[in-house]
């Protein structure tokens, strides 16, 4: 019902959605899903943790900050770390070979790096879509 009060739970642990299903409140358990995002969308980046790759990207784009990447975070899908790619409207999984840092800020930086490399590569689905459907 519109106007119902929030019946979700707080995200307390960086591994909450890897260790388990992240269901805490009685309402979440009842409906079998976490209410809301699986990461803090309002977390602003800590620029002390900027990686050299991202610094180079900002320099090339002529930006003094992370620009659109400020909205990119590492999320979790089906118990696996993943990043949401808005260009394909889907989650892209982080391989098991990548060791995750113990804090969300560093994980977000990794997520941004991976997403840039993926979006700018020839194997991104948008490359084929553009070839098939682009009009100009």
């Amino acid at each position, binding site marked *: 019902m519109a106007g119902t009060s929030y019946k979700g739970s707080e995200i307390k642990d960086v591994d909450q959605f890897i260790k388990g299903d992240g269901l805490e409140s009685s309402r979440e358990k009842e*409906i079998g899903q976490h209410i809301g995002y699986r990461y803090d969308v*309002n977390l*602003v980046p800590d620029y002390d943790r900027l990686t050299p790759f991202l610094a180079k990207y900002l320099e090339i784009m002529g930006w003094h900050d992370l620009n659109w990447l400020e909205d990119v975070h590492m999320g979790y899908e089906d118990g696996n770390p993943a990043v949401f790619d808005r260009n394909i409207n889907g989650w*892209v999984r982080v391989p098991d070979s990548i060791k995750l840092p113990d804090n969300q800020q560093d994980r977000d930086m990794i997520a941004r790096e991976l997403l840039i490399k993926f979006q700018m590569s020839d194997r991104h689905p948008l490359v084929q879509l553009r070839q098939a459907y682009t009009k100009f």
Partner: protein
Amino acid sequence: MESMNNMTQEERAEQLGMMSEPLTGRSMQEFFEPSEDDNFVYPWAPVVDPAKSAEIDTDEMNTREVNERIRQLMDEGVGSIKLLNPRGKHSLAVGILSRVNLEVEGSMGYFAVGLIDGPNVRINGRVGWSCGENMMAGTVVIEKNAGSTFGAAIRGGDLVCKGSVGSRTGIDMKGGTIIVGGDTGALTGFMMQRGRMIFCGNAGKNLGDSMYDGTIFVGGDIKSFGVDAVEAELTDLDKSWLKRKLEGYGMLPDKGVDHFTKVVAGKQLWNYDNLEPSEKKLIL
């Protein structure tokens, strides 16, 4: 039929022929490759040189001609383009999907620089309604005032107005950062879903009305909060981010950022509930 009062929500939904809709994220089954090459621009983006510049006098051109000329210059490798005499034309410089520096000498009409993904734009004038609508990435800096629905449905990037803006700023925004040096009107942040807004001046009535998520920072007075917009604690991380953001555009107030009010969603309108259809059916 068994009494519904004794059933769980899911059993009731099943009895009524309603299926609970799984709302978990969809997977494209795409995986990152850590060994991916270090590319910084889209594969299809034209290779532009910021040192190579050109001017477009838009006086005798219509909107379509101007936008096509911008693309043509980018295909020729021009990385810095100056638009002269825009004279308030609507929908100028829309749909630019890669890196380019664009400078506009004059004022632009409705829907200026909408749907962009990467360019850095400076507008030495004013803009009309819905500037930066559906912007994906890049920076847009407006030296004077902007109209209503500034940054409507913006998804990413920095949209900056050094003057004041009208009402419904950032309506339905889904990401990105809107920065305003002056005041903003009523219903700012109406139905915003995520992203950040910074107002160095005052905010009008119903700030953040029905916001789902996201953050609004206001340096001046707030006329009134909208439904489900609540004040939150300004953290040290918020302060350092605000300072960096405002300094980057030369808009840091003399008194710093400690006085800013942070506004977030109270989450009382949150309704991510996959049994909702069955509940409605029971009520009806």
